[in-house]
């Protein structure tokens, strides 16, 4: 008896987005990274094409994040310098690109100036030769000041810059168009708003083929299932033909995991939960693994062991 073909047939392809520029392309990166291009859901290689594997961006910040000692120890003293931290991510952890968060610009942290931030961007670009993702500090008003200078400092490097929200997208579009960078569009766990931000970017004259979506990220136990569902729905809708959703997706797993009590508090606070040393990195790795299934293309990760774990998963399943 012939076995019927029950595979899904998708009609659309997710946009391919390339980050970074080599010398020949006007930048100084040793190689570029391309994400997207799928014609099927994650892992379903028998139903369609997955031309580019998901990638890992090493989490780096301009100031040491409020992280538990277990994580700071795992990364080592390099965490105190964005340049050394980025170098360690590339050389020792083998990440595909660097995700630089300018936390220090936050008025409640260091209130770093736009030129200080731009200097960090320049230094990191000089120190490593992988493509770069640049995030503001999350304070819209301050980001509107620092991102233009950072974007200029990275001109020609075809960075991925985040993030464009409903409230600030005009500035981000203007600088990314001027300096030829790619954009992260952000909507907080809201698929309708996510689509709307993409429409706004398009209306402002930015090509959606240069956009990566950020549905924001939730750690396991903190709305993880909501984000998972949104990412999965965005991907399947994109594959069905909605060009506004046929966009690669990014998850900040490192940034989110290490804020929650399960990844911060040791056994003295959470009796019966096991040693934090193991638990925290497992929490990050598990989140990363499941977001791969939801349809993420870029995972921003922090703990070296969690990175190693997800690298193995990607190698094995894609």
């Amino acid at each position: 008896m012939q076995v019927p073909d029950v595979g899904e047939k998708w009609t659309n392809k997710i946009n391919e987005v390339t980050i970074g520029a080599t010398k020949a392309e006007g930048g100084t990166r040793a190689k570029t990274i391309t994400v997207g291009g799928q014609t099927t859901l994650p892992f379903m290689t028998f139903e369609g094409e997955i031309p580019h594997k998901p990638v890992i961006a090493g989490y780096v910040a301009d100031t040491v994040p409020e992280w538990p000692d277990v994580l700071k120890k795992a990364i080592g003293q390099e965490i105190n310098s964005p340049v050394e931290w980025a170098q360690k991510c590339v050389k020792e952890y083998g990440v595909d690109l660097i995700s630089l968060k300018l936390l220090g610009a936050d008025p409640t942290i260091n209130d770093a100036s736009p030129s200080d931030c731009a200097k960090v961007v320049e230094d990191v670009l000089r120190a490593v030769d992988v493509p770069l993702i640049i995030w503001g500090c999350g304070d819209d008003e301050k980001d509107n000041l620092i991102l233009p200078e950072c974007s200029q400092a990275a001109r020609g490097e075809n960075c991925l810059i985040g993030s464009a929200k409903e409230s600030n997208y005009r500035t981000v579009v203007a600088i990314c168009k001027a300096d030829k960078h790619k954009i992260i569009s952000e909507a907080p766990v809201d698929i309708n708003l996510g689509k709307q931000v993409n429409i706004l970017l398009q209306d402002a004259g930015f090509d959606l083929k240069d956009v990566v979506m950020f549905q924001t990220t939730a750690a396991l136990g903190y709305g993880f299932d909501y984000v998972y569902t949104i990412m999965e729905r965005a991907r399947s809708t994109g594959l069905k033909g909605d060009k506004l959703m046929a966009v690669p997706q990014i998850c900040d797993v490192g940034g989110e995991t290490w804020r929650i009590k399960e990844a911060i508090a040791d056994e003295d606070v959470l009796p019966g939960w096991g040693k934090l040393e193991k638990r925290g990195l497992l929490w990050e790795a598990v989140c990363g693994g499941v977001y791969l299934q939801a349809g993420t293309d870029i995972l921003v990760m922090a703990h070296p062991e969690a990175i190693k774990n997800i690298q193995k998963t990607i190698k094995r399943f894609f």
Partner: protein
Amino acid sequence: MILIGERVNAGFKDIKEAIINKDGDVIKEWAKKQADAKADYIDVNLGTASAKPEDLCWMIEMVQEAVDTPISIDNNKAVMLKEAIPICKKPPLVNSVTAVEEKLNELLPIVAEHKASIIGLSMDETGSPKTADKRVENAGKIFEKIMEYEMSPEQLFLDPIVMPLKFMQDQAQEILKAASQFSLFSDPPCHIVCGLSNISTGTTQKKLINRTFVTMLIANGLDAVILDVLDEELVNAILTADLIMNKSIYADSYLGAFLK
């Protein structure tokens, strides 16, 4: 929703004259207008202007010079299709075939060979069906033949045959029932299409009747429609019905975004 623009049709006086005078600009203009309005196919109908395959091919070429939207060849004669299908740059939609055995055996091999799609009218040699059951029976015959020629369900657009509301008011409900049953034929299902404007023939509220009926059809599985794609309110109603059926994701600017 798959929108099939109906305007390059010799039933319209300007198109008929354009065919007779070989005035390609008129055809190109209508092709462009419909493509700008996001038609997924441009229906090309020679009507009574000519019976020559070369005239049909000329019309297709004019459309293809203006836009890269796929063609819906509105003709059911093998001799015409044999000439017209190969010149289409993208796999065309053949409009249409009835549930008549010899007709199916004549047209489906050509359609299958070129990986084209076809509209299957749920009527047979006895004429237009009166009941949902008869429509389903006819559609079933076409579906079976499609399988026989190893075509996939996605290459078939089943048409429940829309009748004028004013003259055959009892038919609308039969059409809706038939459409909902067509979608059960297979998984993934074949497409369900209709020539929408038939419903409002002879009425004083054509546009209102068209857009009311199309939303009801969408609720019953319709996913393709031959229409006046320039009727903005009609297209807006279709986009909204697609949201209500959860076929696309809501965004505040969903109407404006469609035309971008």
